[in-house]
């Protein structure tokens, strides 16, 4: 049995009538990165707040680094660090003053706090902005400072709540590099994100969350096996050709395609992009099916959801042609 750094069992949390968590389970082995993937309102932040001792829950059980999050909250706080969705730094203080304040609060003396602050500023490429108010930092710089503040002492468990939300791609890549560097030190990371790509880049395993519970769990590869790395999308001209095209696409991609009946659009995950595209184009041509559009594109989180939950994050879009496309828990090993 591997050591579990995070265990959540049957967590429930209600806000009035709304269930924020509805039987949430999560096992995270020590020294791994676990991605919590889901749309806004799925309950990701609620999970992080509970596990970081910031929020009480109604029922269930949760331990982090071996400590019960309710009973042993005081001891647990010495083992965790939280980098929130909203940069949790003091905006009036400078970057260095922020790191020194948090260092002092963690029990370092003034000299140690100063030394550690300077190391981290260097490591996170913030030395030049050390004396500037954090309020004047760019979004990316502020997130890096926030992450640095979480690493003053190496935590056993680090919570990253949507660390790159709202960042431009370049800043996002830099933050990802910073996160990767942390992981090597043996810290367990729980990362929440709305981006499939981010979970793919950073996480060893991914839990897909919907409406306060985990709907699928597996490695990025296992998830992709279901979602498909890329998708082929084809729009037929005549609705009468829809059934035949679905059958063709299904056979060529060995999947059950999604069908958007109203827009006469069929989409399916593909393993080998070019082969699939060529095969499908040739097949529809051979069958004399008139096509309005055909192409390859990356799957969206919405499609991942459609596959995993049977409902879309944006609109419910049941494919009448393939009522069995629902694949509940298919990738749970």
């Amino acid at each position, binding site marked *: 049995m591997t050591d579990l750094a995070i265990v959540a069992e049957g967590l429930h949390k209600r806000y009035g009538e709304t269930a924020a968590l509805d039987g949430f389970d999560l096992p995270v082995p020590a020294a791994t990165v676990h991605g919590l993937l889901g749309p806004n309102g799925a309950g990701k932040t609620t999970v992080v707040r509970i596990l970081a*001792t910031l929020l009480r829950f109604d029922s269930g059980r949760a331990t982090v680094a071996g400590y019960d999050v309710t009973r042993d909250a005081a001891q647990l*706080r010495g083992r965790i660090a*939280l980098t929130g969705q909203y940069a949790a*730094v*003091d905006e*009036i203080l400078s970057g260095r*003053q922020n790191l020194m304040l*948090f260092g002092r*609060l963690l029990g370092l003396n003034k000299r140690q706090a100063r030394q550690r602050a300077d190391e981290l500023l260097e490591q996170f490429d913030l030395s030049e902005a050390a004396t500037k108010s954090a309020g004047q930092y760019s979004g990316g710089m502020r997130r890096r400072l926030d992450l640095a*503040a979480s690493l003053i002492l190496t935590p056993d468990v680090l919570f990253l709540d949507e660390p790159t939300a709202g960042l431009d791609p370049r800043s996002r890549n830099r933050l990802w590099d910073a996160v990767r560097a942390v992981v090597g030190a043996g810290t367990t990371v729980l990362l929440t994100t709305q981006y499939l790509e981010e979970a793919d880049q950073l996480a060893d395993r991914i839990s897909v969350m919907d409406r306060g519970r985990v709907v699928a769990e597996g490695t990025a590869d296992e998830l992709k096996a279901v979602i498909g790395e890329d998708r082929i999308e084809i729009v037929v001209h005549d609705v009468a050709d829809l059934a035949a095209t679905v059958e063709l696409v299904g056979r060529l991609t060995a999947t059950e395609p999604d069908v958007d009946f109203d827009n006469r659009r069929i989409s399916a995950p593909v393993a080998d992009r070019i082969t699939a595209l060529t095969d499908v184009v040739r097949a529809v041509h051979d069958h004399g099916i008139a096509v309005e559009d055909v192409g390859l594109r990356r799957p969206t989180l919405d499609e991942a959801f459609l596959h995993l939950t049977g409902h879309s994050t944006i609109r419910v879009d049941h494919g009448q042609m393939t009522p069995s496309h629902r694949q509940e828990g298919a990738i749970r090993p």
Partner: protein
Amino acid sequence: MINTEVGQQQGRARRVVRDAWAMTTRNIAHVVRSPEEIAIYFSVPIMSVLVFGYVFGSGMMVPGGGSYREFLVPGVFAMSMLYGMGATGTAIAYDVNRGVVDRFRSMPIARSALVVGRSAADVFRALLEITALVVCGLLVGWQWHRGVGNAVLAVGIVLMLRVAITWIGIYLGLVVPNPDTVGIIVFPLAFPLTAVSNVFVAPELMPGWLGTVAEWNPLSATVSAARELFGNPGVAGDAWVSQNAMLMAIVWPVVLTAIFVPLAVRRYQRLSR
């Protein structure tokens, strides 16, 4: 066993002080990094001295005689303590609104550190305010007449009021979720409290019932005590509360602090709901 326990107790006590001190230095650093804020903040009491001292002052009467401006300055000391509630409340509400409090709460630090550090830093700030007001007062002809010792005691009495008011401000900042709202609601709270007190006008000159309210106003006790210790004009009224101003100047802040510290701390702990 017992030794370990005592050690832990000492360790915890030391940590509470250390964490509160770290928070205090943080808040003092805020003052240093944003001097424009404190300049705006000083302007209200200084303006009050000038406007009341020179514009309305000529029409004002001091019971028992004496200079109105000498009567006024200790009142403005207390008034500026009261208005400090807005700054305290706004700062706390701002902290809670930002993720920074989540970070503090997820760290192994004393739960009291944030609120105690806020109170301590605001009392420090009040000391800067009083220094500015003393200079301003000396410029308009105010003086202390009963020696430096009594003057320092008077400042101590004024600061006691400030301690109580920081805790009311902290509670307010935790109850009202929006920092902007905190600043707005403080004025309608503080303005009548200042007007219906002995800050600007002696309660004897007010209609009977209003005079009684003014005499019982906690602000009045502090102001009377400060006037007495500074040797400034303003003879206290005949009511018991006015005759025992020195006692009440200590009782009021102690009572208010005893009420609002637990309220504020409980409110802070309830953030985890």
